[in-house]
């Protein structure tokens, strides 16, 4: 085998190993040659945090979790992380362990405790250190599975509540409820009708009141005018002349009464004459009815009337003939 061939084999192997190892370290974010500062975090539990997960400060990745161990007393978990040396952490630093995304990867975020007073950080003195390594308290946000478990518990409770409600809410209850709703509906309908009715009445009353007010206003206006006139009359002293005129009118009426009294005497004599005339007429009428005298005979005997009718008919014929043949009866002769 030639040297070149051997060299090629060695070259390929070295490249492949370098690619594999270098690529792995690069993808895991290894820091070659850069100084790292260790930091330890004490938390009650670490949830899904694993070695190699990111350590973030103000949103920037500044290190990685190097190891996770349970404390000997079993009261906490010690998370060892390596941070870039150039980063200065706050005095009241704490660590919040939380999911980095919705896809399961976690991270440890270094925060100032004062910014998160609602988080129950693991109690660690501010200046605590372990072997020269600073120790901070941590708080672990509930992981998704815990939230899911809580949601499941809530749903179970809701289911129990629903079952109880279902037991309490029997068919009879439903019927009563339905009846109550019907009653409420009827009452509301009645109230609505009543309101409509009262509204109509109120409208009429309002209209009447409006009319009355108008009339009162008109009356007051008339009264005002009357009062004004009275006032004017009183003011202009016309009342005396009116009284005088009334007195004169009364005197004139008294005179007219005297004249009328005189005339009544004349009327009495006229009536007496009329009575005698009527008595005469009664006697004449009685004679006519008894058929006495010429006029009575004429009225009681129909022969006269028949003859008179015949005469009238002949007279009518004569007039007609005269109208048709005037020369038969009238002759004009000049000479």
């Amino acid at each position, binding site marked *: *085998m030639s040297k070149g*061939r*051997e060299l*090629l*084999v060695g070259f*390929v*192997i070295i*490249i*492949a*190993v370098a*690619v*594999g190892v270098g*690529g*792995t370290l690069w*993808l*895991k*974010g290894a820091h070659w040659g850069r100084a790292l500062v260790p930091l330890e975090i004490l938390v009650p539990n670490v949830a899904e945090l694993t070695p*190699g997960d990111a350590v973030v400060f103000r949103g920037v990745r500044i290190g990685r979790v190097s190891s996770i161990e349970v404390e000997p007393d079993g009261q906490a978990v010690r998370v060892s992380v390596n941070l870039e040396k150039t980063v200065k952490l706050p005095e009241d630093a704490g660590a919040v362990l939380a999911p980095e*995304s919705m*896809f399961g*990867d976690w991270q440890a975020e270094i925060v100032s405790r004062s910014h998160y007073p609602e988080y129950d950080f693991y109690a660690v003195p501010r200046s605590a250190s372990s072997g020269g390594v600073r120790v901070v308290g941590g708080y672990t946000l509930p992981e998704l599975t815990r939230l899911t478990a809580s949601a499941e518990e809530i749903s179970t409770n809701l289911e129990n509540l629903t079952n109880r409600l279902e037991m309490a809410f029997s068919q009879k209850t439903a019927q009563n409820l339905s009846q109550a709703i019907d009653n409420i509906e009827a009452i509301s309908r009645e109230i609505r009708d009543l309101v409509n009715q009262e509204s109509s009445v109120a409208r009429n009353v309002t209209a009447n009141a409006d009319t009355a007010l108008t009339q009162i206003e008109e009356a007051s206006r008339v009264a005002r005018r009357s009062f004004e006139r009275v006032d004017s009359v009183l003011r202009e002293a016309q009342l005396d002349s009116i009284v005088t005129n009334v007195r004169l009118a009364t005197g004139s009426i008294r005179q007219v009464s005297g004249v009328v009294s005189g005339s009544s005497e004349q009327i009495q004599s006229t009536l007496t004459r009329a009575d005698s005339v009527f008595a005469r007429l009664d006697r004449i009428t009685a004679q006519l009815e008894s058929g006495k005298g010429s006029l009575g005979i004429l009225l009681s005997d129909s022969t006269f009337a028949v003859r008179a009718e015949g005469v009238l008919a002949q007279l009518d014929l004569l007039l007609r003939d005269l109208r048709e043949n005037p020369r038969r009866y009238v002759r004009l002769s000049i000479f």
Partner: protein
Amino acid sequence: MRVSLLRPVEAVGGAVLSSVATVGRAGYLAVGAVRALRKGSIWGPHLLAQMAKIGVDSVPIAIFIALFTGVVLALQASYTFTGAVPLYFVGTLVGKTMVLELGPVLTGLALSGRVGANIAAEIGTMRVTEQVDALETLAYDPNAYLVVPRVLAGALMFPIVVLLADAVGVLAGWLTSMYLLDMSSQTFLKGLRLFFQPWDVWFSVIKSVSFGLTVTSVGCFFGFSTSGGAEGVGKSTTRSVVVSSMIILVLDAFWAATLLK
């Protein structure tokens, strides 16, 4: 009538006996190869040549396959994720898929055709031309001379080739995302790093070692089992490729079931 009724039974019996005989010959070869490991003076000088032949010469085809696999993975991932999943998952999918699955399996399948067929044809030809018998006559252990260097070279070089294929596949996906999908390099790397675990690389190496052992062992077995002249060589070559490909896929499932729990 009686003969025709017994024929299926004879066929079943023959198949079982043939399978058992095959397993027995494979076991005999494996035991012989393990014993031959002690004879370093015989296989040692040939190891480097086989590493070059099996590994280095296979790098171009492995890189070619990985290159286009990475491109297609990135494009298909982008096509799948657009509008529903953040695009940085293209990097996640390309990295995970190349390292865990497609890098080792596609390389193994490709090399089963190139390397396994080569070994089966080479040793089969030596078998039918009685060169293997000549080795035995010269007191050379055929296992030490022919099997051990090839199997060792396969076990050593398959991971090398697969690592390069993985890297090229991821790089191809990265470049595709940047220049064809208008993704930033940071976006792709974010997804690539999001779920990356060093164990993924070890998983890939373990699988490729098993594939290398499989391809070379099967090639050697069918080479030694060759009979019937040139036609037998051809059959051995075909069987070697088919069987080694099937075993690769079975091993792929086996490793996924056992190592990715």
